[in-house]
């Protein structure tokens, strides 16, 4: 009994909101007012952050390596596009949830394929599913528009009140609010007993099963949830840019997503968001340096990160903030190395 209460006290303590977290969100909101001319790229970052958050749920918390997460992004993007194009659901928020649900159903169905087998099989199956969907979208071009993508999507105002403007202001606030709500949900989930059991599975599936965690059911549940998140991210993409094309399924999208998450660090939810900001900045920088060959630099970043070691890089990055916290607050550093990198 006491062990149980220890666990719950510990879980409650880690689930408490920290000052740094509040500061993060205040800063995110402040950006909206600081850079009014940069709404489009900031929307891009928010979307990417949500997508990376979704991958973090399965990679950082459940340890599933996926090379085809774009499958759910694409499913969400095309669902939102088709719903708007044919006027089935005109209200963007309801359409967003509907698109997320479509992706979640897809995630649920494919999760049975993914939980089987070892890492390599998982890589192959996830990659295969994304490629399969891309091939399908190309094949049924009368529905999806083929290589041209969905064209002529017109978005209705959000909740009938806020129309999308050409500067992307509405789109940005809409995306940020969606991200925040979904982040709160994800935060609740990973700090719940369910989230703890996921970590147990990531660290050692066999041992988790031995203490009575239903491993497969937990993996299916979190995979479905992550698919839902990715679907929402995809739907946001379609709704804020008013287009959906075949490249939503592309391998590069899944690979970039891994990079985003790795830059930010896995297993503490903020990794995807921070990674998205850094990744977009890097991308802008590289594209301005060498417009055509920026892929090279992205690849170099990946190789360097792996060679140096992910955990070590995060220690370096966090060195200065930790130093400040130690000096100012006079207590142990609150910003720790994300535990997901220990493995």
């Amino acid at each position, binding site marked *: 009994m006491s062990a149980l209460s220890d666990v719950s006290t510990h879980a409650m303590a880690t689930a408490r909101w920290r000052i740094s977290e509040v500061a993060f969100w205040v800063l995110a909101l402040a950006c909206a007012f600081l850079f009014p001319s940069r709404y489009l790229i900031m929307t891009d970052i928010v979307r990417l952050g949500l997508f990376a958050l979704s991958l973090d749920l399965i990679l950082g918390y459940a340890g599933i390596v996926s*090379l085809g997460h774009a499958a759910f992004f694409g499913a969400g993007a095309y669902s939102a596009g088709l719903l708007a194009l044919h006027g089935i659901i005109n209200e963007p928020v309801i359409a967003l949830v509907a698109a997320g649900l479509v992706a979640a159903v897809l995630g649920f169905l494919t999760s049975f394929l993914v939980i089987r087998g070892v890492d390599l099989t998982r*890589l192959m199956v996830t*990659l295969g599913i994304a490629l399969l969907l891309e091939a399908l979208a190309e094949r049924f071009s009368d529905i999806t528009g083929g290589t041209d993508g969905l064209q002529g999507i017109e978005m209705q105002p959000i909740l009938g009140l806020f129309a999308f403007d050409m500067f992307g202001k509405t789109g940005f606030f809409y995306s940020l609010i969606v991200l925040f709500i979904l982040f709160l949900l994800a935060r609740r989930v990973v700090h719940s007993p369910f989230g703890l059991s996921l970590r147990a599975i990531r660290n050692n599936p066999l041992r988790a099963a031995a203490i009575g965690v239903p491993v497969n059911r937990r993996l299916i549940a979190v995979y479905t949830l992550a698919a839902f998140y990715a679907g929402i991210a995809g739907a946001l993409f379609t709704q804020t840019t008013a287009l959906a094309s075949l490249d939503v399924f592309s391998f*590069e999208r899944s*690979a970039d997503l891994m990079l985003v998450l790795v830059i930010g660090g896995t297993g503490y939810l903020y990794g995807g968001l921070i990674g998205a900001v850094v990744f977009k900045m890097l991308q802008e920088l590289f594209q301005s340096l060498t417009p*055509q060959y920026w892929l*090279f630099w992205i690849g170099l970043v*990946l190789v360097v990160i792996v060679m140096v070691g992910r955990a070590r890089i995060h220690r370096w990055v966090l060195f200065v903030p930790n130093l400040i916290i130690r000096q100012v607050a006079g207590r142990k550093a609150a910003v720790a190395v994300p535990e997901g990198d220990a493995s």
Partner: protein
Amino acid sequence: MASILTNLFDGVAYGMLLFVLACGLAVTLGLMNFVNLAHGAFAMAGGYICAVLVNNSGWPFFAALPLAFVGSAVIGIALERALYRHLYSRSHLDQVLFSIGLVFMSVAAVDYIMGSSRVFIKLPAALEGQIDLFGVGIGRYRLMIVVICGLLTLALQLILAKTRFGSRLRAAVDDPRAAIGLGINVPQVFAFTFAFGCGLAGLGGALSAEILGLDPYFPLKFMIYFLIVVTVGGSSSITGPFLASLLLGIADVAGKYYVPKMGPFVIYTVMIVILLWRPNGLFGRTAAR
């Protein structure tokens, strides 16, 4: 009837090509449990080496082929010694990230040096056109591929089965720890195998320029094919990947010819079904430990 046989032959040629391209990957995966998504980059290197030698320096095609092998093998061993060997004990996630990074770099580098358009290798006149064999049209180039790849496969099988190096390699694949205990220098065996596999990929890349097309995006486009060969075939022998390559080659050619609208759909579906049915591959005992 004749067209079926011609397609079958094309499929076999394609499959054998895939085998030469992918067998190095099968061995590295089976030996060190290393997920190397950058294998296609070595194939691309071989293809471009051959293209430059033949088109720019005027080498004969058959003299350039061994150079493609050697060039890729040298690049392979350099990267193995410098980078890869530090990652054998890391998680699969690290290996995947690292090799994706390498792929991205190779794509952009080749794009920068050679341009983004497809490269053709000038073939000797003797390899062009078809010959008629019992009423079945057979492309000369594809016939050459079948001959070369068939010989290579035989040679590989002999090396694995009959030589001392082969038995060391097999021992290392079966159980690296026991092999080390018996005094086999496993890292050395691995480095040599890695270089040889990269060389084979380079040779395959040079041969495949005519059939698969050679452009900077080669490693990305065909990554899935190499992985299919390895995962479906398993990595405990070379017979498994060989049969898997033939199956894949024949299925792909037949699929493109008879149901062109389905595109690559058939292959992916078949792959997923096979992996569900036998997660360790059709012929493998343990695809990954």
